[in-house]
């Protein structure tokens, strides 16, 4: 009996210790979830946990009197703090750009120590680190739900105040508060090689999908270059096609965040060379007509940069952030060009521009670190010139734009409007439910277009019909109101 008892006591105490150890390590936001999971009675517990997180959210949103617009960089020159910044720009960490910027920053703020860490595979790793809570003071916001922003990050300012000084700040705002500021902004166009276009006899930049496909055909006929390099194997480069949805395809900046989720047939052919249908049709037809690389499954992202630079590739469909990398890749930076996406809606070419990754501040940092972090972010945004150097579209209102955007004269530059109140997470939910994941890592659906186009295994209309079916199923599952 004694032996059994002692054993039982030992075992239970061991379990208890391990449980509390786990609970202690988890951040506050996770604690209700962990407790709930340990418990067997599930349904009611869930509701309680929800309420708990919501309450936490409410109190956080009111707290904090720091704000970006009221902060003066001149008043805090002698602040002493040590902050940590994790980001996704591993290339800039390695080539010393980051260190140089911080050295510049320290000339003005000598007592703020900034430690940086470039994280490879940022999209996934940062999410994991976020849930552990122990990641530093500043990060680039990963894919979290907007309703969870306040659990992790400090509000930087109200949306009204901030949008008077900066562009593209609405993408990570919730309930009128902004949680992120983009480190740079991208305009969505198409990379091309000027020398290849000249050699192929393309005198005017194509303005519609049909003209663009003609241009690709000319490149195939008149040069040795690959007309359109898909970058199929890298995956995320395929997901980049989603960025043109909305503003580019129909000139409506409210479409993606407000109307897309409610559209009954988003992938129908409008018949005038516009719309999502014709956006993806470019890719399908290019693959079907052999206007892409020979073996798309072994494309090499690092290698393609030099190939575009040298004129071995005609065009690549990627955001403007890629421009600087293409220029640096080899000896012909002057040949790398950037043009608006070839689609014209009612006589106007629209360009979608939006923030890249956003700076944000850890809500659990000390007040000192929060202040230092905000100073650092403000300095990076306004004084570091990082955005300009990366070839980014200006984040600061009326700031200078790099020369590469010359071809964008005459185009209408818009950025996506926010979702309406109460539907902030709707698009995310629709993306997850339908598994099409537009602008959210849905690479495989675009890869499928390439496979189908190149092998003829599916017709383009079948793929579009399938997407529509998935979209409609998700709308039904989430009980979304559908407009025709």
């Amino acid at each position, binding site marked *: *009996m*004694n*032996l*059994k008892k*002692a*054993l039982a006591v*030992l075992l239970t105490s*061991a*379990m208890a*210790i*391990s449980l509390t*150890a*786990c609970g202690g390590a988890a951040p506050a936001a996770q604690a209700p*979830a962990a407790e709930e*999971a340990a418990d067997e009675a*599930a*349904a009611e517990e*869930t509701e309680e*946990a*929800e309420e708990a*997180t919501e309450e936490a959210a409410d109190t956080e949103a009111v707290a904090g009197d720091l704000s970006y617009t009221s902060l003066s960089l001149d008043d805090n020159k002698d602040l002493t703090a040590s902050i940590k910044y994790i980001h996704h720009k591993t290339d800039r960490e390695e080539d010393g750009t980051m260190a140089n910027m911080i050295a510049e920053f320290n000339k003005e703020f000598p007592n703020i120590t900034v430690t940086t860490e470039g994280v490879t595979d940022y999209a*996934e790793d940062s*999410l994991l680190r976020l*849930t552990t809570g122990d990641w530093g003071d500043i990060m680039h916001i990963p894919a*979290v*739900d907007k*309703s*969870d922003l306040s659990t992790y990050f400090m509000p930087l300012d109200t949306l009204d105040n901030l949008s008077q000084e900066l562009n593209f700040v609405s993408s990570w705002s919730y309930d009128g508060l902004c949680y992120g500021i983009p480190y740079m902004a991208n305009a969505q166009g198409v990379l091309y090689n000027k020398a290849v276009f000249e050699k192929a006899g393309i005198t005017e930049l194509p303005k519609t999908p049909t003209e663009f496909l003609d241009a690709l055909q000319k490149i195939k006929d008149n040069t040795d270059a690959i007309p359109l390099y898909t970058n*199929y*194997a*890298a*995956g995320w480069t395929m997901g980049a096609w989603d960025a043109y949805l909305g503003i580019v395809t129909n000139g409506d900046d409210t479409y993606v965040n407000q109307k897309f989720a409610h559209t009954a047939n988003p992938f129908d052919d409008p018949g005038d060379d516009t719309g999502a249908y014709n956006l993806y049709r470019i890719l399908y037809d290019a693959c079907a007509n052999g206007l892409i690389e*020979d*073996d*798309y*499954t*072994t494309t*090499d992202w690092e290698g393609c940069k030099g190939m575009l630079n040298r004129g071995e590739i005609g065009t690549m469909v990627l955001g403007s952030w890629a421009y600087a990398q293409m220029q640096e890749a080899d000896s012909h930076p002057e040949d790398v060009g950037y043009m608006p996406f070839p689609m014209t809606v009612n006589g106007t070419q629209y360009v979608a521009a939006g923030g890249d990754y956003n700076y944000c501040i850890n809500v659990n940092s000390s007040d000192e670190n929060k202040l230092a972090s905000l100073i650092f972010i403000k300095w990076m945004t306004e004084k570091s010139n990082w955005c300009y150097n990366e070839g980014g579209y200006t984040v600061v209102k009326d700031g200078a734009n790099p020369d590469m955007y010359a071809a964008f004269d005459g185009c209408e530059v818009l950025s996506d409007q926010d979702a309406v109140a109460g539907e902030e997470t709707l698009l995310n939910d629709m993306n*997850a439910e339908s*598994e099409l*994941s537009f602008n*959210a*890592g*849905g*690479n*495989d659906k675009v*890869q499928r277009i390439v*496979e189908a186009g*190149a*092998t003829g295994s599916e017709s383009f209309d079948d793929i579009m019909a399938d997407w529509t079916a998935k979209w409609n199923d998700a709308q039904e599952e989430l009980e979304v109101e559908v407009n025709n």
Partner: protein
Amino acid sequence: MSKTRTRRSPGEWLRSRDGQKFLVITAFMIIPLLLLFVFTYLPFGEMFTYSFYKMKYTGARKFVGFDNYKKVFTRDDCFGALKLSLYYMAGSVVQLALALYLATVLSFKVKLGGLFKGFMFFPYLINGIAIGFIFKFFYTRGFVFDTVLSWAGFNIENLPYWLKDQSINNWSLVGTSVWRYFGQNMVLFIGAIMSVDSNLYEAAMLDGATKFQQFKYIILPSIKTIVLLNVILSISGSLSAFEPPYVITDGANGTGTYFVVMHQIAHTQQKVGLASAMAIILLILIFIATIIQRLLFKYVFRNAEDEDINATTRREKKLARKRASAMKKGGMTA
């Protein structure tokens, strides 16, 4: 627990020999048990509960009962992905046969045997991700593999696209996994073969057994535990194949195995509940596969052991017949 012993107070009991033994055993076991519990059973239990919820990593969750399990069976991309495991199972048969053959050859005296062993074991030591990148270039059109084949007289025009052609790309991926793991299987086999008593070979040779008979009657029965282990490992490995398709093709172009699909559902679509259900189902499948293999092996090796007895009876019958005919002859001459 006898009644006489319980009369001792707990303090006395702890100082006694039994108590000390108990203390030492628990003290030594508590750390490994704790680690096992915290990092294996606790997360597994959590995952099991997740599989009944509709949830993302962050945010609220909703109890949905067995819906996730139903979805796994009805969606054609989840359960259908298991078909790809057949490629990897076929590959593991080749891999084990090759490993067993080479192990048998190398366990006898071979010139430069150690060197060969080293070369063949080496791929196992390379990181799986690195192997993925190596083979990505290996299979690229006009790169390593095509070049080697063109030396052998193949015309590059007639060669398939190793990763693009959907009828062949899964075999290409299986090839990388065979290349990586057969050396490890081989080393395990060699280790087991080494433990076979060499007197047995000598005796067999005296009896006039061929090398194949030695393999069949001496080596195979002696190493059946290791064979079984390797088969179980490679079958469960082929059910959960992940690295080659994930690194080389990103699971695209018809190469998405169960694990890759699970990864996509868990991390891209963030349907954690569904992915957990997939994991539980895979676990059950691996259990079933293991049990079937155990039964099958019992059956196969029962024959192998009986063979010896049959052989003796046959031999005795033969001898009896010979003796009988000799007696007849003797009788006639007499």
